[in-house]
Structure formats: structure tokens, C-alpha cells
């Protein structure tokens, strides 16, 4: 299903969506763009010129989330808010990341009800990237600026209108009241997509990356890579595919809570005996990179990185994932 969403009608369309669902969109607050529920009408309240600093995975895996509440001597599951949600303006890399994380949270023997229920009640309206950032590298990891695999709807900006393609039943339901796109508009969107793809830098090729990294497992390479690292964990907290969490009891609130955690912290794998299988930043950095580029692929046959570039953009020490992959390939 291919429809059009004229920019002039965007505010009215979103207002219509807001009747039946909470609409989240990127909102700029003090220079930082983040996904927020829209409370007012009109275009002015959201911004589509930059991706959010925090990945929208937090809509499904909140940075801190109560799993259980104490009830007598039992723990009762916290149901959470399961009203319908529409995420407008999510970028293809982040929508794709949610799809990859479905593999972790829903695709194995155990289904995570907290993640899955929120996913089930959410429609992702992705905005393809006609003007990718310098740090983006989605095409290098097998994705692209119009990769629609994780999205219910993919929007292509062709000037006055967005061409809106729905690939799922949820997406089709959302677009049903919009006008069909003309052949001319469809052609214009294909061209815009092709141009965006061609304009993307492709900093590395993925061929043989798993074997390359396994070959370097015991190499000095990891020592060199981690040298500038401060161990702050920003790369993992801002990563749309990082999913590690800790479970802790907030006794005063009477809640069992899960919080984002990071493999870049020493305490993460520290055992009660004092033993730590990843005692230094060298092993921890190796874990971070190899999880994305080697281990994830063995489990799900996909690279666990969508090339959003946040780890590159926000690393305070200037560590660059693209450079790490390239050096591994010239080393290996």
C-alpha cells in the first residue's frame, strides 16, 4: 500500500492519530532531541531534522522499568501502560534495531512479556533518511537509509509530500484514510531513495568479519583499540541494539526493577567470589565489538549493529566503530 501524506496535512493527520493512540515524535528540548508523547497540535512541537540522541528502544525497554511490585510475600507483575502507541519519525536504523531485539526478547525459548506487549501495541512510522549524517554507516552493515524491515510505514520525503508505504497490517490500517500515491510520486520516491543510498559513505565491507574477529580474539589488537576508552558506557547506553540489563530491588518503593546495564562496566560480570571473567577494559571492549559483529550474527544471522552512528558521534574519547572494523580487517 502506497499513499501520500502531504506536509501541509501532517498536523491534522497526527491529530487524527492522536484520537486513538498516543503519538510519539522527536522533540527538541534544550538542544537534545528525544522521543516524547505529543500533547499539543501542530508541526511546531516536533522536529524531523535530526535523529534522537537516545535510541527509541527505550519505548520498549525503558532505561528503568518496574517488573514486579511487592504484594504481601509475593511479587505481582507490573502491567504497565499498554495503550496504543504510534512512533512517528523513527529512523530506519532504529526501527530495524527494534526488529533485531525482537530476536532477543521474543524469538527464543522464553518470551519477555514486558518487551513483547509494548511492541504489540506500537506502530512504527519511519522517516527514511534523504540527508544522512556524516557518522551514519547503515549501508555498510547490510541496512540502508530506507530499510523498511523494522517499520510498519516508511515515509519518503519528495518535497511537498511524504510518500508513505505500508508493509504491515498495522501500517495499512494507519494509512487507510490517506490518498493513494500517483505513479509519478512513487517514481520520485524511488529516485530519492536511490540517491540517498548512493550518497551514503560505505566505510567498510562486512565480508568475513566474523572470522576476522575470531582470529583476533587473543590479539594485541584489543589492547590498542581500547586505549583511549574511558569505560563510561555511553556507546552502549545510546546504542539501539544494546539490550543488557540489571535486575535490582528498590526496597523502599517495594519494586523489583530492571535498569539498563553495560558490558563496559567492571561490576557487570564481577562474581561474588571476586573472580571476573572480563577483568580489564581490554576484555570488555572485545566483548562489546564482538557481540555486535560476531556473536549476534551466529545467533540471528544478522549483524547486531544498524549503523546509526551514535557510538561514533557521542564517544567522549573519539573512538570510532568504523575505524575499529577497518583496522580489524587490515590486521586480520
Amino acid at each position: 500500500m502506497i499513499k501520500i501524506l502531504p506536509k501541509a496535512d501532517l498536523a491534522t493527520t497526527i491529530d487524527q492519530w492522536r484520537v486513538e493512540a498516543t503519538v510519539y515524535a522527536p522533540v527538541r528540548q534544550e538542544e537534545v532531541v528525544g522521543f516524547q508523547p505529543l500533547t499539543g497540535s501542530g508541526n511546531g512541537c516536533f522536529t524531523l531534522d535530526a535523529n534522537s540522541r537516545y535510541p527509541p528502544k527505550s519505548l520498549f525497554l525503558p532505561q528503568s522499568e518496574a517488573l514486579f511490585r511487592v504484594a504481601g510475600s509475593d511479587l505481582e507483575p507490573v502491567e504497565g501502560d499498554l495503550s496504543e502507541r504510534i512512533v512517528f519519525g523513527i529512523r530506519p536504523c532504529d526501527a530495524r534495531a527494534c526488529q533485531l531485539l525482537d530476536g532477543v526478547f521474543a524469538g527464543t525459548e522464553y518470551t519477555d512479556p514486558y518487551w513483547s506487549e509494548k511492541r504489540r501495541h506500537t506502530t512504527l512510522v519511519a522517516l527514511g533518511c534523504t540527508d544522512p549524517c556524516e557518522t551514519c554507516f547503515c549501508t555498510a552493515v547490510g541496512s540502508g537509509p530506507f530499510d523498511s524491515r523494522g517499520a510498519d510505514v516508511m515515509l519518503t520525503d519528495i518535497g511537498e509530500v511524504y510518500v508513505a508505504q505500508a508493509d504491515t497490517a498495522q501500517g495499512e490500517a494507519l494509512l487507510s484514510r490517506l490518498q493513494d500515491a500517483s505513479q509519478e510520486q512513487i517514481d520520485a520516491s524511488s529516485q530519492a531513495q536511490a540517491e540517498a543510498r548512493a550518497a551514503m559513505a560505505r566505510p567498510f565491507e562486512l565480508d568475513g568479519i566474523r572470522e576476522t574477529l575470531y582470529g583476533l580474539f587473543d590479539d594485541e589488537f584489543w589492547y590498542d583499540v581500547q586505549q583511549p576508552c574511558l569505560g563510561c558506557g555511553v556507546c552502549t547506553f545510546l546504542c539501539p541494539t544494546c539490550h543488557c540489563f540489571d535486575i535490582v530491588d528498590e526496597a523502599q518503593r517495594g519494586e523489583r526493577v530492571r535498569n539498563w546495564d553495560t558490558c563496559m562496566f567492571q561490576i557487570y560480570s564481577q562474581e561474588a567470589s571476586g573472580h571476573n571473567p572480563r577483568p580489564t577494559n581490554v576484555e570488555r571492549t572485545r566483548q562489546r565489538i564482538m557481540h555486535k559483529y560476531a556473536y549476534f550474527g551466529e545467533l540471528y544471522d544478522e549483524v547486531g549493529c544498524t549503523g546509526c552512528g551514535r557510538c561514533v558521534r557521542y564517544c567522549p574519547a573519539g573512538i570510532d566503530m568504523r575505524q575499529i572494523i577497518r583496522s580489524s580487517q587490515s590486521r586480520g
Partner: protein
Amino acid sequence: MEKSTQNPYQPMPMYIARTAVETEDHSLRSVELAFQHDSDRERFFSGYRPGQFCQLSIFGKGEASFGVASAAWEGSFVRFTINKIGVFTKAIHGMQPGDPIGMRGALGTWYPVEEWKGADIVVIGGGYAFTTLYALTKHLLDPKLRQEYGDLTVIYGAREPGLFLYKPEMKMWSRRDDVTLFQTIDTPREDWDGLTGYVPTVTKELAPRADNAVAFVCGPPVMIKFTLPVLNELGFPPDRIYTSLERRMKCGIGKCGRCNIGPKYVCKDGPVFSLAALGELPAEF
């Protein structure tokens, strides 16, 4: 494995049925947990196999992973033998019969003895890591099961006699003719007339026959490290040696991330691995 529709993070309500101090230094205590709900008990025992672990839960202290130290046929309880080492284990050591406690599981893989019917079984353990091997041995001593296996040999080492677990049971095993028990302590003592020496050395001297045997090994990392080459020399191939690994865990179901060795999660793909399977993983253990 069957996909569960239950909330996998929700502990079952249990209570402490019995406790027992295991070692002379009081650092190890066994607790036997009983089920509050029959449905939980039935579900647990329909799936549990020796080698698996559970997440125990005390609200306010959190959760921690412990290997199960009992066989299903022993009764409607689940035993854990717990070393007092941190906040959580200290809390368990302070608990009394009747106290409530939460439990998730059983989780993870098990010692796959059902694949080795007819074989001789060699169990090699050291220190307080003997717990799941104890469960395995008890399982094999089930009168209904014992005749389905060949010789059952147990080699069990501890630093000193007072640190052996399950002492009354060990006494009984040493008198039985359907299990051969060798207990060894690190250095000779006047009050000890059994074997002395480290587990790898003793295993080498005892030289259990490998031609129709499977070995199950669990102990401190240094014991495992030196026992594996001995077993190799004795003729045990890597696919007939199983060991159990430990890692810090939170979720226990392969989602929270931390316990991986390469692409495998110790909680979900382990804790029991064959040496052959471990050989295919990056050497991060």
C-alpha cells in the same frame, strides 16, 4: 525446548522446609525448599534434570543463581547448598524453616546422562562445586534407574575433611556396592585415613577406565583445568567429558547479556557443556 507463556521473571513462592550446616567452618549450609503451590511443584518436577540451576529470590536482596543439589526422587523439595560469600547468601544463611523465599527454574542445561545409558559413569568434583554432581549421583542411585548404567565412580576432593559436603550420605556411599566413592583431601592429616592429594593427581592414579565411560567434572577452575588433560590421557574424548560453568547472571534466560562466552549464554545454553562444545567457543573461561 517448549516455549513458556509464563512470565519468566516471576519467582514461584516457596518456603524453607529444612536447613543443615554442611561444613565445620559453617560457611556452607544446605536449604531444602518446598512449594507453596502444587501446580508449581508439578511443573518444576516435570522438567527438572540434575545439573540445572535456579534463581533464588529474596525481595530486598535480589536474586542469585544456585545449582540444584537434589534428585527428583528424593522428595517434593529442592535442595541448594550455599556458600556464605555475599549479601544474598548471608541472608539465606540467616533464614529459618517456614521462611518464605522465591525461586525461578529449573533453568539451563543438564548432565545428559539419559544419552549414556549402559555406560560407566565417572563423577569428579572438588570443593563446594560438588552440589550438582551430588544431585547427579543421587539421580543415578535411584533404585529404578541404577541398573540402566554400568559402574558408578565418584572422585571427590576437599581441602580438609571438615569441608566435605553431605557427610552422612558420603558415609553410606562408601559402604554401598553400587557406587565406588573416593574422597581425597589436599594434604595428609592424622585424623584422615582416606586418600590425599589434589583431584587431578588422584584421578590419574585411580585411572578410571575410559572405554565405555562418560566423565562429569565440576570444581574450582584450577581443578577443572588440570583434570581435563588427565581425562584426555586416560582416553576420554572431548564429547564424553562434561563440565558445568559459573557466571554472574541476572535474568537466567539469555536476555540480560552478561553470562555469554562467545555466542553462547551460560544460563541458557549451559551451564553444562561438553568439552567438545567448549572447544568451539572463544577461550574466555
